[in-house]
Each structure stands twice: as C-alpha cells, then as structure tokens.
C-alpha cells in the first residue's frame, strides 16, 4: 500500500543503520534478565508465605518464565517492525520517506527526484564515521521544507545513487519534452507542405 504509480519502479529501499536498534536491544536484554532478578527476589522474599502452589512449584515457575519470554518476544517483534517499516524508498521518479511510529502511526511523504537541488551528507563523530552512517539532507525546489533522514547506513553511497538517479530522470524528462516538439515540427511541416500543394493545385 505504498502510494506508487503503476509506471513507477522501486529501485532501492534504504533503511536506517542497525545502530538505532541498539537502545532497543539493551531494553530487550534487560527485560530478558528480569526473571533472573525475579528468581533472586523469590529467594530474598518469603514468597512461599504469599503464593500457595497446588502443584509442583518448578512447573509453575517455568510457566511464568516462558509466559514472560513470550511477552518479551512480542515486544521484540514490535521494535523490529518499527525499524523495518521505517524506510526511504527510491523509485525511478520519486523518493518516499516513510516513518513508522508504533503500530498505529505512520507518516509518508514523497517528492519528485528531478526537483532535488542539492544532496548533502553529515557524519558527525567517531561512531558515525567508523560504522558508516549519518544524516542525509535533500534540498528541493519550491517552498517545501528540506528533507532530512538520520541514521542512514552508507550515506555517501546513497548520495551518489540519488545523484545518478536524478541525472537519469532529468535526461528522461528532457527526452519526453523533446518528442512532442519534434512531432509538432513534423505536423507543422506537413500542413505547410499541404498548403503549398493546395496552392499549387489552385495555381493550376
């Protein structure tokens, strides 16, 4: 359901660098460790006074452990989906910026590739340089705000790719503009010839 025309083709999908997932990974690692902390507390606090097990306690503990891991697993997939659907789609005509924020908030904006006036890349700091990610800024013609995408992997390569795509699109649009002119010229010369022929006929 990405709003792409039928004549349009996706030529590249750009995702953010895995570094943005690092904070999510830390959160998941902590949540994963919660049962260990829970088991420690279980020994610290006299839980046998509070919880009354009617069956084998080990099975009940393993049930809660797997239930918790199942919840953490779901949370992990939620984080992954958020990352996976946050993309920059480059087609042969336009660039789409899709921002997925949670499961029920999605922002999508697009602009024509031939309207780009300048592509700039910012890589700040040792981490961005070593891991090769940064911010791409696209300046477009018109009153529209500049487009900025952060944490993009291999930004210089993407910049080169956008520039090449833009060159191709500009060349193509120039060709499209040339063709009708040529047609007009042919039509005009044809009608002129007819006129001349008519004049010839009248002259005879």
């Amino acid at each position: 359901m990405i709003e792409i025309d039928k004549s349009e083709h996706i030529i590249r999908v750009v995702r953010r660098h895995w570094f943005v997932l690092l904070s999510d990974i830390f959160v998941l690692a902590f949540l994963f460790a919660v049962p260990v902390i829970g088991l420690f507390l279980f020994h610290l606090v006299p839980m046998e006074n509070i919880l009354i097990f009617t069956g084998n306690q080990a099975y009940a503990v393993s049930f809660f452990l797997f239930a918790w891991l199942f919840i953490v697993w779901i949370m992990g997939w939620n984080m992954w989906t958020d990352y996976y659907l946050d993309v920059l789609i480059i087609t042969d005509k336009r660039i789409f910026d899709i921002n997925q924020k949670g499961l029920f908030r999605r922002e999508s904006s697009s602009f024509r590739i031939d309207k780009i006036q300048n592509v700039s890349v910012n890589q700040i700091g040792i981490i961005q340089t070593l891991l090769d990610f940064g911010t791409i800024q696209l300046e477009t013609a018109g009153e529209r705000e500049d487009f900025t995408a952060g944490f993009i992997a291999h930004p210089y390569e993407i910049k080169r790719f956008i520039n090449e795509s833009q060159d191709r699109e500009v060349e193509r649009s120039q060709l499209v503009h040339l063709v009708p002119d040529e047609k007009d010229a042919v039509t005009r010369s044809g009608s002129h010839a007819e006129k001349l022929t008519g004049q010839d006929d009248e002259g005879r």
Partner: protein
Amino acid sequence: MTPPAILSTINIQIAVSPFFLFVVGALVIAGWLVFTVIIRYHWKNYGTGGMQLFAMNFLYISGSAALAGLMILSAVLYLISAQ
C-alpha cells in the same frame, strides 16, 4: 525492619491453581493473536521484499509456537502434578 521482614508480616495469600495458569496462558495467547494480526497486516501492506518477509514470518511463527508450546506444556505438567 528490612523489606523482606515487612513482607513476611503481610497476610496476603494467592493460590496458584492450574486454572489460574491456564487463564494467564489464554490471555497471553489472545494478546499474541491480536498482535499477530496487526503486524502481519503491516508487513503484508507496507513491507518491501518478498524473501525477507517470508523469513520474518517463518521466524516469528516458529519462535512463537515454541514459546507458546513450552508455556502450555509447563501448565499441563503443573496440572498433572496438582492431581
């Protein structure tokens, strides 16, 4: 008075019956089902790349089945041990 000592004085008792485990398990699985419908809709409609989506679906379903299976198995074993 240390916190565990305070807790030992509290007179709250929760019975962890097999029924309680099955109710908790059913709630978790119901939540998973709702979440699965939502994220698979997102993957199907907004995802890009067929093979990647297939791998994601496979990993998600197989991992979920394993965890749900272990959870249910634990509940069943608890039920058997309670009888």
